[in-house]
């Protein structure tokens, strides 16, 4: 404690220099927090994605090619315990720029997709109000919807039996977003959707989701499903949910590439910090060589002098890191304004590990930077230093 005034004196000797160092550290650590935070949330979607659920779509990419009759056959595949299905209602709201895609789910799907934050009462409500949908917060915010809003989804070409180009949906409620669906969700009723289509188009499915008894059996079950339909009119492609997210299917950008960009930028920022703080502390020590010589002459131990230099390096680095992390924390709330939700890029999450890593690096950089000046002070020739040579 008694050394505190000494450290303080060193820091405020050239206040501008300390402040500039601190601010550049803040910028570098804001970058560190945001990049690693983004990487962490992308990884998080993979961590929470389920291995015991399998997405099943048409093998050659055409939507609404699967048929309801396939459900019974998928159910008979070993290890599959339940199968849900959905149709895809795709159009726009008011302006072609506001594309709106609703997932019209059947009654089995909620049992498989247990993460969907909707209550059984809400599902019941959706079955009663036939054109009712529930939307997630992101959708409600971007399209300006709330419970009770009319939500007509328009398309250029009708796909309805009555020839209308508008699906007259109605918002029944708003639920919280899921980390696995940063672009937001619109959930409606499959039976309403299906029964509004022309007869020839009914009984079609965009995707199935199968739950298996054990995550360990997911790959085998997925392969068995694909084998089952290999030579049928509608071959399937089945992928366990976790593998789907791991393959970068969320935003279309490979998870490894996101890691490369974020980690690379974070590393470049830290490397820059190494230069900046290293230079500051070296200069500051060099200017005060005589003072340090006096301190050593009056009996300050080498260890104490080293500690003083170290603390002087740690303060701007650590304070900068803390300010930078605080600034980074202000970004997630405005993230949808920077990156449109439709790009499906999760909001950076400054998790405890990310914060901890930032603090650790701030300390590590300060220590590295203090190393050379304190070694120099240790080897200081007192006589010539005191003489000002």
């Amino acid at each position: 404690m008694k050394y505190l005034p000494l450290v303080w004196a060193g820091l405020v000797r050239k206040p501008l220099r300390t402040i500039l160092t601190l601010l550049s550290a803040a910028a570098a650590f804001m970058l560190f927090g945001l990049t690693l935070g983004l990487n962490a949330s992308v990884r998080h979607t993979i961590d929470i994605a389920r291995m015991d659920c399998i997405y099943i779509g048409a093998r050659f990419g055409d939507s609404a090619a699967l048929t309801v009759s396939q459900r019974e056959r998928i159910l008979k595949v070993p290890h599959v315990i339940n199968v849900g299905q959905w149709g895809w209602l795709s159009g726009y709201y008011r302006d072609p720029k506001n594309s709106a895609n609703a997932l019209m789910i059947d009654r089995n799907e909620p049992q498989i997709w247990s993460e969907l934050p909707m209550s059984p009462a809400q599902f019941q409500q959706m079955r009663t109000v036939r054109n009712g949908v529930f939307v997630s917060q992101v959708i409600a915010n971007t399209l300006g919807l709330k419970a009770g809003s009319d939500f007509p989804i328009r398309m250029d070409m009708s796909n309805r039996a009555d020839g209308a180009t508008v699906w007259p949906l109605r918002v029944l409620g708003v639920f919280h977003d899921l980390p696995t669906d940063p672009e937001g969700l619109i959930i409606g009723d499959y039976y309403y959707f299906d029964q509004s289509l022309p007869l020839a188009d009914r009984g079609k499915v965009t995707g199935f989701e199968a739950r298996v008894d054990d995550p360990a059996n997911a790959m085998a079950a997925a392969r068995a499903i694909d084998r089952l339909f290999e030579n049928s009119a509608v071959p399937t492609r089945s992928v366990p949910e976790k593998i789907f997210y791991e393959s970068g299917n969320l935003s279309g950008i490979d998870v490894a590439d996101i890691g490369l960009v974020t980690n690379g930028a974070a590393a470049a920022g830290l490397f820059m910090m190494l230069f900046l703080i290293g230079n500051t502390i070296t200069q500051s020590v060099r200017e005060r060589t005589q003072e340090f010589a006096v301190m050593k002459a009056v009996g300050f131990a080498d260890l104490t002098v080293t500690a003083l230099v170290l603390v002087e390096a740690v303060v701007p680095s650590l304070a900068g890191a803390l300010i930078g992390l605080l600034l980074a924390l202000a970004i997630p709330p405005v993230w949808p304004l920077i990156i449109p939700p439709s790009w499906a890029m999760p909001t950076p999450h400054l998790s405890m590990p990310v914060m901890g890593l930032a603090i650790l690096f701030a300390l590590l950089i300060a220590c590295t930077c203090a190393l050379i000046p304190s070694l120099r002070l240790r080897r200081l020739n007192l006589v010539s230093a005191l003489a000002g040579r």
Partner: protein
Amino acid sequence: MEALRQILVVSSLNFRGLRHRIWSSLVIVGGVACVVAVLVSILSLTAGIARSYAAAGSERAIVLAAGAMWDDNSSLTHQAVNFARATPGVKRAEGGSPLADAQAVSSLPVSKKSGALEATVMLRGLSPAGFAMHPNLRIVAGRMLRPGAGEVIVGVGAERQFTGLALGSTIALQHGRWPIVGMFRSDGDLLEGEILADADTLIPAIGRKDYNSMILDLTGPGALASLQRDIAHSPQFKLKVERQSDYYARTTRRFSGFFTAVAFGLGGLMAIGAVFGTVNTLYSAVSTRSREIATLRALGFGAVAVAASVILEALLLSLIGAVLGAATAWVFFNGDQKVLGTDVFNLSVTPAVMGIGILWAVGIALIGAALPSVRAARAEIVVALRAV
């Protein structure tokens, strides 16, 4: 002239003294190098995205079904294709046949070579005219596919990224396996990351009846508007026409938009850090040079020349940094490939991207040098000399 001569003298004196401040000068060089390396690396991807459809040009249009956003969810009947092919805005080949390429697209499940993850590659069927409309398509191994024979050729980009697409192997379609008979290059455009077949044989082989989209060569600048009018007024077919380059820009927007935002976001944040470092370094350079500056001023050199020497020092150091950073980005990323969605893009560190990096460096230098140069110019000559 006199002012210029003064700037020259003071700056050259300053540059000669730089080697005594080499370590602190490295702060500017190293800082700017980091910023420019990050900026240029990420922008090389957006440049690659833009380059992938540069060849598409503005003289080409794409016809989709009216409600469709992309070619893979669009559907065009043979009648619609014949109608659009015959519209007046479409260019004709020498024999009189329209340069119109009705395409069928399908996706094929594959694995990525890196990480063995699930991926999707585009399988595109072209019409005979379509092959003629891609004169840049060159077979580099094997041979060209024979129409009607159930064969495909694979772009070198697709082969490099995905497993199972080597020459001689087969791809599984709904109705049978088709051999890969050739590999092609097409100047690194989007096709190079795809598998090509002939549309009329492909459509039944994937259990379809209709085409997905049609590419039209336009007769001239006004042709698109007239084409749009003709197609909009057709009572029979519900179609829409879009400039092909606009279509590509639209479909790749979320990738180019995301990486542009990331590049300038991160580049900007790092630049702020580098600016503070530059200010710091230059302030200490000015205070190291205080005697030199005071002497020069006493000899009659102007304040502007002194201020200019500080700015030129910053510019020199940060340009060295920019060149180092851009070179690093070039070495590591130029010619590299990335898969975004189903498309394969070639990263390219273009002159334009390097130019942005250099502009960024100049910006950092000028902002960072502003305050220190004012201090250098305003230094009290007498006080500084007395300290000698």
